[in-house]
């Protein structure tokens, strides 16, 4: 049970959100190799510590946003960028 900071609505309960796994870097261009594509798509960072992940405020404003979540303590921070 988490409490998540929606950039639009503020602090809300986890049940309003949908997790979409790790945040990825920008989508590759069409011309990179298959293996780079597959790596982008299927190899997530899985560290002990903060990971960036995507959440969708499904039962709220519909905003997709990125947070940093600590995989041990569940402490949550906003990423340094504008939180898009």
């Amino acid at each position: 049970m988490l409490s998540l900071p929606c950039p639009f609505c503020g602090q809300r309960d986890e049940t309003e959100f949908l997790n979409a796994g790790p945040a990825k870097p920008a989508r590759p261009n069409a011309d990179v190799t298959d293996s780079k594509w597959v790596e982008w798509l299927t190899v997530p960072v899985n560290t002990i510590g903060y990971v960036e992940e995507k959440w969708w405020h499904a039962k709220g404003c519909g905003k997709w946003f990125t947070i940093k979540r600590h995989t041990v303590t569940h402490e949550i921070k906003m990423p340094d960028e504008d939180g898009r």
Partner: protein
Amino acid sequence: MSDAMTGLNRLDGGLIDRSAELNFRFDGKSLEGYGGDTLASALLANGVRLMGRSFKYHRPRGVLSAGAEEPNAIVALREGAFTEPNTRATTAELFDGLVARSQNRWPSLAFDAMAVNDIMSDFLTAGFYYKTFMWPAKFWEKIYEPIIRHAAGLGALSGMSDPDCYDKGFLHCDLLIIGAGPAGLAAALTAGRSGARVIIADEDFLPGGRLNAETIAVGDAAGAEWAAQVAAELASMPNVRLMTRTTVIGAFDHGIYGAVERVTDHLATAPDGTARQVLWRIYSKRSILCAGSIERPIAFANNDRPGIMQAGALRAYANRWAVAAASEVAVFTNNDDGHRTASDLAAKGVKVTAIIDTRADAPDHGDAEVLAGACVTDSRGRLGLSKIKVRSADGSQRWIKCGALGVSGGWNPNVHLTCHQRGRPVWNEAIAAFVPGAVGPVGLSSAGAASGMFSTAAALTGGAVAAVNALGEIGIKAKAMAMPEAEDAPVSITAFWHVTGKGRAWLDQQNDVTVKDVKLAHQENFQSVEHLKRYTTLGMATDQGKTSNIAGLAVMAEIAGKTIPEVGTTIYRPPYTPTAIGAFGGRSRDETFRPVRLTPSHKWASEQGAVFVEVGMWMRAQWFPQAGETEWRQSVDREVLATRRSVGVCDVTTLGKIDVQGADAATFLNRIYCNGFAKLPVGKTRYGLMLREDGIVMDDGTTARLGETQFVMTTTTANAVGVFRHMEFARQCLWPDLDVQIISTTEAWAQFAVAGPNSRKVLEKIVDPAFDISNDAFPFMACGEITVCGGLRARLFRISFSGELAYEIAVPTRYGDALIRRLMEAGEEFDITPYGMEALGVMRIEKGHAAGNELNGTTTALNLGLGRMVSKTKDSIGSILSEREGLTRDDALIQVGFKPVDPNDPVVAGSHLMNIDDPANAAHDQGYITSAAYSPCLESSIGIGFLENGATRKGEIIRAMNPVEGSEIMVEVVSAHFVDPEGERLRA
């Protein structure tokens, strides 16, 4: 027992209401108690010491504690469907008319035939399940398990549906205080007066904690009086919510706690509509654990007889409930606190026959004979204690008469909630107990006995200081008030866990685990605490070892030659006490288990006698039986044939509808769909195929271009939400620079498919004359915004899932019911036939259209025979990875149709395909059948599915095998387009 029924065990005083006489029944016997009693206190007052039988050996057991930690006095409350098994008599509040029954005994509590297990105990030691019932394996289900289930266990369920209702609620606060003893009340008062939003919760119905059970004064008042005054002040504060009968059951992330409030459990009948229990989710900024501590017993031979109790419980019954468990009592202790029991009981006029203290330097307060450096070695009394055997410091032994023995092995702080986030408690040698560790749930601190501070003064001050500190962290200034004076006795204890000797000494009374069992586990190398728990069952079941775990660890440490902290504890997990499943379910049960979505034509379809089927949350008409039809196939075949012959109508509102608008809407769709959408003209509809980024098909549907910058997309019913999420992700995260907005309009439009050769004629009767829907003006795949029935705005799409000349017509949802009635009226002259999900399914299989069975998360566009749709001239989601080597093999699975060689053979979905001469195994698998139906048009069963290299194998005969269904038939590989393969009908 002579004093049973007469209440002779009642003392003077106590916090009971003698004006409220309450009648109740225990095992059929009528008894009487008072307001403020628990079932356990009332039973003791009536001289009932025997309250249950143990789990494994069916030993007679009485009450051990006076609280939530109770392992023995586990009873079934109420009757019939309201029966609640495995309830602790110590926390069950007495009410007039309560009916309680003992458990796990046959034929009666006093004479239990299964007590023969006790004699057989040498064969029932730790791990006996694993050793005894290993072999032969086939005996397990039929012989061993029924025997064990009959012989061992707790209460039985009623087997009926729970007639109570439950609720869920959400609360927010600055400070949550868990426990309303001296520490909790001091914290709440401090925080409440500061103006902070405070919630203080206690599992008891009376705030005060141990203050209600002791004779300790707080300032000038008795402890219980002070507690009542503070509770009254808290109740008067608008910023404080004092919740009694509320157990905080778990500590979760980010200051979120779960709590169960027992709203009506203390009432004979719940007022109508009132939830029996409420599961609260409490969002706190800070929290303080003031949950007190639990006294632990000392193990000795036959220490489980009814009458042997925690010393603290013995005096709680005397002080709070004015009950002497017996007329003669003794005390067995390793610490100073045990002596309080002797003093309090002696002061109440109960005869204390001896105080047995394991310490050589035991104090003597003159309440009774003190045997220093002594221990209890055995006990007697078949269904209740009559005497104890004592070994004095000099080694001499003698029997001492007593009907109750208070045992104190020290107190364990209630660290549970501090460990719910995997925190570990730390050992405090001074009090010989675990206290909360440094790392616990964020924002949670502890005070009072829960933190290992056992004196009343320390609890009061600790609670106040904890509140000031916690509020300070969130910027609320609270003043630390001076607390009234109270006892501040230091803890004096010498750890003592069990008396060595021959007989069985019980550690865990609920699970019948003895010191010997722990030794055996150690001997058999189950030495880790987690293994010890599973092998011996120590600390399992309803009490979760609240009185037994630490002693079990101590015995293991002693045998293993380790310290207790080296042995460590098992993991503490929520819930803190047993919680009714109903509370977790709340109102989500039966027909309100989840929301139900009804189509706009639902009322009309019900009037027609439609049979409905759940499709996700939707209820959809499955077929419409007519008079004389006795079997579903008759209805479905009729609906299919009528549609293909003339015209049918079907509610397709459930398909997802997404409105896509913006200057870049076309560009956006061009990237979402793998086929081109940029050049779709206004007024046209196109079939679109959507891939996942890994190249697998995600969904399909049609998208209509209503304007330069407006599209309406449809999705499958099942994927409506998933597709919308996917598109929002793409819009917001992948291409935020595109000017495009999307919104789900699934519920905004009622949509009906009107299909069949006469569909245009029906529609022409309701479409307003201004709109020409002739084949020339409105050809296949046309779309447009029109009006119907004299000015009602509508959308018309000439698309077909059935393969017939067909339209889908949409009107604002509130007109859906009117539209279906109007369509039926207009279609009457053409025998218009409503059709349901089944007929829809038959027609799409006849046409070879892929649906959920084919878009199953493993198939590609190539598999579906749509490989050429994936545009190579643009980048769209999934187009790159759909080109991977493994997904573009020459012998890839291709969607084809199957027809049985013998028309009488049914094709079974899920069948796997094998070549005639190959062995039938996974290595020779040629593919599988995904969908099958009886086609009334072809008068044969048909199927579609995926076959290796299928495009080149038309005409081949192969085997379709389904070992699960036990079917094997010969099928011919055919085109998946069974009906009208050239698509002439839909263009007509």
